[in-house]
């Protein structure tokens, strides 16, 4: 069983790169281990929560190592050299984990849980949930440095934020080719604001159910 296989059952989708991926040099196995480590920690928390409360704070996780092609493209775009050094330490999302939660508070709970580990140093943090992007995009972004070496980009969001982002991604690709660009963009923004509102309401209803049951 490879290290890859060991973690696949934790995640819905897992994108890996071949061992011989040249941009990452000899680092691929170590990068996989770091990514797997994040997933294992999340899995441990989920198990604990399931046993304690009977509910799972996480709907699903996605994990990926950036493909050679898109890493090289990003290095060029950002004006860095196409070297292993820059791919690993100038670009900070070679390793990415997305954690999708059912409820708003779970997003913050998982974040708080992860930052407590001593070998995870938070180097950047952006709360696009509290401070949504102008187009309506919402997610909690965090870059951690694991054990002083590899960076991992974490994206935490709710299911509705995830659904929205998927649709926005499609729109983004077709931008400029659509007749109603502006209309679609403003309608997407409206949907983002409605979903954000519903996320808050669902959280409050869940709190109420828990209180009444207590």
């Amino acid at each position, binding site marked *: 069983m490879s290290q890859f296989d060991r973690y696949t059952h934790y995640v819905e989708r897992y994108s890996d790169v071949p061992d011989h991926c040249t941009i990452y040099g000899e680092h691929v196995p170590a990068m996989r281990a770091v990514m797997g480590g994040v997933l294992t920690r999340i899995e441990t928390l989920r198990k604990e929560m399931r046993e304690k409360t009977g509910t799972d704070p996480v709907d699903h996780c996605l994990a990926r190592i950036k493909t050679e092609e898109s890493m090289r493209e990003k290095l060029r775009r950002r004006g860095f050299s196409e070297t292993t050094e820059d791919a690993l330490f100038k670009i900070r999302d070679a390793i990415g984990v997305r954690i999708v939660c059912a409820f708003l508070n779970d997003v913050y709970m998982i974040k708080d849980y992860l930052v407590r580990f001593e070998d995870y140093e938070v180097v950047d943090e952006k709360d696009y949930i*509290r*401070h949504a992007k102008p187009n309506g995009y919402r997610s909690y972004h965090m870059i951690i440095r694991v054990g002083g070496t590899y960076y991992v980009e974490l994206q935490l969001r709710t299911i509705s934020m995830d659904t929205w982002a998927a649709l926005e991604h499609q729109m983004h690709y077709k931008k400029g080719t659509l007749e109603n660009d502006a209309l679609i963009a403003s309608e997407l923004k409206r949907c983002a604001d409605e979903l954000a*509102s519903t996320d808050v*309401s669902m*959280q*409050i209803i869940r709190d109420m159910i828990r209180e009444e049951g207590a």
Partner: protein
Amino acid sequence: MKLLLAEDTRDMNRALTAVLSHEGYDVDSVFDGEEALSHIRHDSYDGIILDIMMPKKNGLEVLSEVRAINILTPVLLLTAKAEVDDRVAGLDAGADDYLTKPFAIKELLARVRSMTRRRREYSVKELKYEDIVLNAERFELTSSNSVRLSIKEFELMQALILNAGRKLDTKYLLDHVWEKEDAQPDTVWLYISYLRGKLLAVDSRVIISGARGGSFQLTPGVGRDKT
């Protein structure tokens, strides 16, 4: 339905109060402009009846001050026959209607019914309070972000903004936001909780104070870290 009657002539005041109470209105009656203003600032009314000629502050002054502080309660002015300029000035200052003395009680009652009915249809496009904007066309609550509200959330927020600085009890909110709909005190509490969450979600500093089943009030809140 709660009315404020400001009329300095004792007999007239007493008679109107009696008639309006008999019709089922909850009436507060005062005798001068300053008293009227202080009642309007501290209580919530569904309609205000203002005599123009009053001591201390006249009806027009009261009206201007009331509108200046964003209170949109409908106002019916009572004017003497000759005061054409007053009637024009009153309507321009934000009165909803006027009635010339002497008038028939029947007509007064009809005008009160009409003005309180119109109140429900009254809406401004945008209401502002501290760092929030409530947009009535889009049902949108905005501070540094925006969210879309449901109809009842919107109406509750509107009531809170229009009465900012005053405490609104659960019963008042049930009567005015939910009216004849099937709702209970916990419905109010749930919607207050929704709005609290949504104020946080748009990153506003505004707070809704108050506890389950009690009275609620919008307050500016304190600064929070902008991270």
